[in-house]
Every structure is written in C-alpha cells, then in structure tokens.
C-alpha cells in the first residue's frame, strides 16, 4: 500500500486509531533484552495459547502484543495491562493462566505480581505511579515499550510519520534546520555537538551527493539505550533520518548496527521494508519529490567503529580505522562526500522536535543541554534498567529516586558515566546536574548514556585496570600513543593491583596519560586514559593504599587481600565444602579457619556464607 499524500496518511492514521480503540484491553508483554533473556517470549506464546481457546469480553488473541523495552529490567519479565496500566512484575509462564482468569475475566488484581515500593512498602498497581516511572520524562523513548516494533500501524497511530509529513510538505530544508537549531539538540552519542549546526554545515557544502548515517554501534559496556530504541521503535529512527535527508538534500542513508544486536537488525529491516511499502522510503516520498532510501550496514562489533571516521570506513567496506579529522566528515565523510552522522537517540528525538517545536524542546532540560537524555542503569543499583530524564537532574535523583539506591544496604562509592572513555565520579559529585558541560568539567563525560554504579566493595584501581584492558583490546592499533601507551598504562595499573608498583610508577602513569590524551589520533585514544585519570583524581588514597600499604580497601585485588573467618561462624560447613583448594578446616558447629597459605582468594567462601562470617582484609 503506497501512501502518496499527506491526506492519505491522515486517513490511514484515523483508521489505525479506530481499530486500536475498538480493543478495550491491551496486554503488552515486554520483549526488551532484559525480559527476553528471562523468557518473556515464552510468556507471550503462552498468552496467545491460553487466549486462543477462551471467549472473553473485550479480549482476543490480538489484544496481546509484544513491545520493546519497558525499562524496568530489574523486575522483568514485565506484563502491562492497559488502559489501567496494571503492572505485573517477574511474571512466569505459570502465572499466565492466572492473569487471564483473574485479571482479564474477573477484573481482579493479582497482588503477588505487583511492585512493592521499598520506601512506603505499599503495592502499586499502575506503573505510572511507581517512582521509577513517575520521575521520568520520555521523548526519545516515547514509543519504546508502548508499541509493537514490527507494526508500522502502531507507529503511525501514535503520531508516527506526521513530523516527516510536516517537514516534507510545509517546511523548506532551511526551516527544518532552523527548527533543530532552535531546539538546542546536541548529539546524543556523547560528544554533544549541536545537531542543527552539523546539518547546516553539511547542507552548505557544494556536492551532488550527501549521506545520512545513523550510528547504532553502541559499544560501551553496560549501555543499551540505542539498542532498545532500534529494537523497540525502529520507525522513529527512520523518520528522523528522512527528515534529515530533506534538510541536507541526501538520497542515501545508512544505519550502522553491530552484529551483536541481531534483534535490532531484524526489527530495523522489518521497519525499512514496511516504510518502503508505504512509500516513506524510496522515490517520490509522499508525492513531494524527495527520493531517499536507507540501507543497514552491519558492523563486526569493534568498539572503535563507533568513532565516526572509522565507522564511515567500515560502511564503505574498508578496515575500520579512524583518520585524522582535520577536515571534518560533514565536509568530507563517507566516500569523501559530505555526511551527517548522528546517534540513534538523536534521530529518534528529531520527529518530536518538529511536531512540538524547537522552542518546546529547548524549554526542557537546561539552557546549554536541552531536552531529555536516555540512560541505562547498570551495576550495583536496585532498579537496573532504561530511563529517560530531563537534562539537569542530579546524579542523586537518578541513582536514588529512580534507581532506588544501592542493593543490600551497601554504601555508594562511584558512578561511571560515559562508558570506558568517561570517568568515575565519587559521592560528593552526586548533586551535580547531569548535562554535557558539567560532567566534562567534573572529569567525566555524558557519553552515550551508560551509567555503571559501584558500591563500597569495588576497587577503583581494579575498575581502571578493567576498562584499560578493554581499551587495549579495542584499540585499532593505528597510532602509537593509543596502541603502545594504553598497553603500558594497563601494565602499570596491573602492577598496582598486584602490589608491586611504586609511587614513581603512579607519576609515570600520569605523565603517560597526558601524552596519550594529546597525541592520539582519534577519540578512543584521546579519552583512553580517562578511567585512570578520573579514578586517580577522586580515589588517590586507594591507589596509595595499594602502593604503600599493599592493601586493597575494596577487598578485590587478589594478591592484596586475606580472607578470615570471624566469630559469627556457626560451623555450617558450607564454606568448607565449596573451597576449591581445601584451605578451610573445622568441625560441624565449630568456628572454621582459613589457612591463608593455601587460600587462593577466589571468594567462593565469601559468596556462600549466609552468616556474614567471612571478613576480607
């Protein structure tokens, strides 16, 4: 079915809305990465199976739909029943018959599946009232978790492609650029370059060919915002790219997705096929004369291919190595042609900006960092998941109000923002507003939005060592400071973790870091020493404890810790059984003893003890 005019699109939207309105109840099963890993696809199938042989008022098999990530991964698998917003958590296959019987037929709430607010200890039925959701404002994630990603009808009925229609039929290229500029949108990939200015520069370069590229090569450990958008609302990315194509005058776009996101690749391809069928991609879009198509370019998963110039080489079929960007890619990018490269989240935000206006978007967030930003919460935090908040909220609000703090009553130690290239911020920085400039000033960065929270049982030297190892492995190896420098930095950091370093080594690391930052060719190298620089800035005493006292305050670095059993031991034999090197001796109901000579500090006893009887020194 080809939609060749705005009127047709509007009629189509009305039809879809009517069809949806006839469905009185909708059951959304979350198929985001977290829930899927816990078997939500089985739950979806079970719903279809159970409903198939039942006749229920207002409910049919079509009432059940799969959606993208709801965000509250810690409580998955999630099932939401609309319009009431009944929020069932940790749903298992055997709950499905119950939900159908009790909630769908009899209208009862199953209280054991509800979320209990840890503060008030009250059960909450409607997800919109759960603090995790009520503190959020969703713009780029507006449809994620709400619609079926495979259904273009769902997207259209939720207002999809109306911004495209508006831009193509009633706005000139310059007007689109002006609106984006007015919105103050800055690149969501992490660097925060003003999107409007990027588009304007590209449009101004003399050339017959221009490209639009969407960067979906999300590589930071612990980050999954772009993944959830591509999987849960792929049409919003396409719409943003079509608007960009109109603004800069491009005929060809690419979405670069890593092969590790197979579902994102499939859902994007389904979306592209549907958009082509409806005539939103291809020749003469909506009868406006715009010709634009999008291809998916699959990457092998190299971290460095998220860097714009390496990404463009990879799209062109060459080895993904960065080049010096003294001539910027908006001037000379993919195949030496002017190219706009934006992140998934940026493109997904653009349709909203055009619909609601740049001024509206600029009114959200802070003056210099407008709008909202999606973050993924991972690590030692109760509510792991995907969130979107206005710029300018504090780290404390994100971690404690939305994230519900640190599990098991442990103490907060640090939060890493911006992935391996970002930095770790300590507790006294928790009241900083989250925006591009504040985080950079504090020695970290916004990055693409991954947040890893660490508690007091984390060793910051080990954290630095871990991320340096990651970067050594992911460095492309083209330039010396990154290839050799990061390797040496990693070796020195390992030396500290093993208690064999001196203070001279620390000084040498600081000097080396400076050269790597200034001397590296691309962003990966230039930000490569950040894990070390930010931890040594805020947690220097931990480094010194490793060097001077040969102690690991976090109790992590194997060579510097000793496990001991205290008098809380009940003599339950659990640790004795689990010890792989037989270092623990003791009789039933007598306090056990660890032979520190034999102990290889694997931590198995610590993990198995339920009496808090094992100390790490």
């Amino acid at each position: 079915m080809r939609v060749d005019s705005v009127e047709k699109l509007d009629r189509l939207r009305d039809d879809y809305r009517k069809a949806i309105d006839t469905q009185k109840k909708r059951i959304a099963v979350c198929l985001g990465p977290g829930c899927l890993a816990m078997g939500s696809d089985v739950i979806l199938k079970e719903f279809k199976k159970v409903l198939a042989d039942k006749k229920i008022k207002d409910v049919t098999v079509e009432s059940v739909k799969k959606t993208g990530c709801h965000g509250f991964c810690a409580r998955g698998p999630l099932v939401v029943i609309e319009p009431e917003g009944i929020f069932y958590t940790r749903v298992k296959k055997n709950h499905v018959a119950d939900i159908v019987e009790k909630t769908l037929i009899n209208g009862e709430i199953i209280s054991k599946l509800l979320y209990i607010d840890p503060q008030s200890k009250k059960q909450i039925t409607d997800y919109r009232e759960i603090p995790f959701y009520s503190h959020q404002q969703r713009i780029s994630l507006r449809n994620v978790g709400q619609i079926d990603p495979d259904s273009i009808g769902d997207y259209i009925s939720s207002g999809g492609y109306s911004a495209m229609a508006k831009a193509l039929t009633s706005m000139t290229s310059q007007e689109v650029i002006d609106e984006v500029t007015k919105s103050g949108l800055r690149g969501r990939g992490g660097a925060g370059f003003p999107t409007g200015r990027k588009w304007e520069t590209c449009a101004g370069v003399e050339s017959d060919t221009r490209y639009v590229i969407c960067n979906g090569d999300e590589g930071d450990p612990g980050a999954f915002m772009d993944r959830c958008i591509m999987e849960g609302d792929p049409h919003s990315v396409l719409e943003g790219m079509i608007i960009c194509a109109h603004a800069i005058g491009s005929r060809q776009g690419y979405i670069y997705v890593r092969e590790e996101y197979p579902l994102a690749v499939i859902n994007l391809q389904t979306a592209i096929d549907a958009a082509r069928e409806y005539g939103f991609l291809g020749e003469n879009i909506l009868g406006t004369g715009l010709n634009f198509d999008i291809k998916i370019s699959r990457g092998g998963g190299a971290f460095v291919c998220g860097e714009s110039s390496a990404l463009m080489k990879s799209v062109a079929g060459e080895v993904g190595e960065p080049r010096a960007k003294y001539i910027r890619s908006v001037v000379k990018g993919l195949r030496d042609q002017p190219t706009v490269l934006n992140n998934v989240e940026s493109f997904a935000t653009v349709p909203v900006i055009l619909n609601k206006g740049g001024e509206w978007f600029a009114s959200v967030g802070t003056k210099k960092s407008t709008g909202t930003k999606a973050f993924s919460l991972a690590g030692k935090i109760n509510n792991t998941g995907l969130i979107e908040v206005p710029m300018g909220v504090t780290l404390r609000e994100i971690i404690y109000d939305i994230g519900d703090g640190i599990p098991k009553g442990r103490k907060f130690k640090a939060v890493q923002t911006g992935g391996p290239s970002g930095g770790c911020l300590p507790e006294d920085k928790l009241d900083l507003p989250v925006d591009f400039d504040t985080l950079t000033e504090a020695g970290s960065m916004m990055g693409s939005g991954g947040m890893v929270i660490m508690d007091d049982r984390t060793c910051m030297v080990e954290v630095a060592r871990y991320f340096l190892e990651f970067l050594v492995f992911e460095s492309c190896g083209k330039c010396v400071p990154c290839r050799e420098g990061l390797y040496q930095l990693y070796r020195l950091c390992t030396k500290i973790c093993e208690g064999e370093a001196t203070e001279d080594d620390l000084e040498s690391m600081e000097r080396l870091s400076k050269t790597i930052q200034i001397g590296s060719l691309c962003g990966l190298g230039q930000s490569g020493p950040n894990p070390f620089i930010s931890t040594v800035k805020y947690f220097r005493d931990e480094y010194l404890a490793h060097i001077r006292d040969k102690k690991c305050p976090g109790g992590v670095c194997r060579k510097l810790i000793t496990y001991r059993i205290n008098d809380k031991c009940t003599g339950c034999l659990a640790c004795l059984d689990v010890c792989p090197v037989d270092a623990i001796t003791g009789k039933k109901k007598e306090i056990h003893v660890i032979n520190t000579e034999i102990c290889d500090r694997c931590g198995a006893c610590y993990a198995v003890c339920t009496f808090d009887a094992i100390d790490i020194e």
Partner: protein
Amino acid sequence: MIDIQLNGKMVKAEEGEMLLSIIRREGIDIPALCDHEAIEPCGACRLCMVEITRKEWEGWKKHVTSCLYPAEDGLIVNTHTEQVMEIRRTILDLYLARCPNSKVIQKLAEEHGVVKTSFEKIPDADNCIMCYACTRICEVLGRSAISAVYRGHDKVIAPPFGEEPPDCIGCLSCAMICPTDVIPWQDENGVRTIWKKKFDMIACEKCGKEIITRDFADYLISSRNIPEDYFKICDDCKRIDLANKMGSIILQAEEAAL
C-alpha cells in the same frame, strides 16, 4: 599563497599544503618515521606533532600531526615547545619498549635524551613500528599484497593468512621504504625470496646481472605500457650501448667534418 607563522617567523606557503612539507622546506628538523614522499600521509607515528594556534583562538592551542594538517592563512605553528618535546620523548620511550633493538629508534631516542625505556619491554619484540609505510606503498603500486592484521596491541603487518602473498610481485618496495629495516629479503642463485615467497629473476642478456623478478616485469609491462623487451637488458648495459652508439655518432660526425 598564504602566510603562516612558523616558530616566530613569517613564511609563505600554498593553501592546503601539509605543514610538515613547509617545516622541512624551512630547514627545521622534526622527526617523522611514517612519512615518505611516495605515499599519502597517515599520521601513525605521531612524531611530527606540532602545536598550532591562531590569534583569534585567544591563547587556546592544539596539537596536530604536521604531516596531515593542511596549512591555512594566519596559522601559528610551533615545532619545539616543551609540551611537543615531552610528547616526542614519551612516544620515543614507547617505541624503545616496543622495538628495543632498532638502531634507528635507539639513535632518534638518544637525540631526544631518551637513553633507556622507562616502560616494560615487549616480549619477543621485533623492529616493526607499525607505520604502515610498507602497506601504503604496496597499495600505491596497485597490489595491496600485505596489510595490517589483528587489532590494537596485537596488530602486525602480514600477508593474507600468514601464507605466501598471492598478489606479491617481489618488487621490494616494502623492504626499501621501511624506516626501521625490518622486512627480510634475499636474492640468491637467480631467485628472490620475500614474505616467504620465491620469485625467478630475469638476468641481463648481456652481462648476466639479475635485473627484476619475472612477476614484477610482467606486471609493469601489462599495466604501465612498457615495451615487452624493456627488461631483456639491464640499465647498465643499456647505458653502455647508448654511450657506444653516441660515441660512434660523434666519431662519424668528426670524420665527416674532417
């Protein structure tokens, strides 16, 4: 023509000309290991870094590789600031750890005051500094027989799958351009060996000296419009022939004049 300020002196340059070529033309000595006139610059060795600024940047400076930075009017370039020298010293220090046995690196490091590396030496180090000069010249020749393989710290220059490179024609360009002289090759009994691949040599029909590999000659004849008999006689014998021919012409002319 544009004006740039180089180490405090105003110099003229072509717009878009790379800074390194201007620096060299002005007789200023800065190290650059991956730069060569036969290949496009790539910015791998990072030794040619310089500091740049402009009046309107109000004191803000940045460091760029001069081999890749196109000159623009009003640019202020400094090649030997303390920061630049510190970067060069650290990079040479890193090179010394990577290639402890390379004479070229040892000499350059010593010139910059780095006698011994302060880092951990890489086990089983060879002298390759991964400057890509060899792969770039091979690409210029139109063969791309070797390339960089693996990633990051494990990266090495190698033929495909570590086997005899099928596209290698034994021209020796890679071995000749290598700044640290690490690519081994051998000519023996009419056979050249490089990258473990053996090539038959063409011997001069006159003096018997080996001129070129058969594969290289065939490649040049087919791709560069060179006459088929061009490689039958070596350049020396061609010169002798030409001299003899010239001599006899002059002799004839002199005789005719008499």
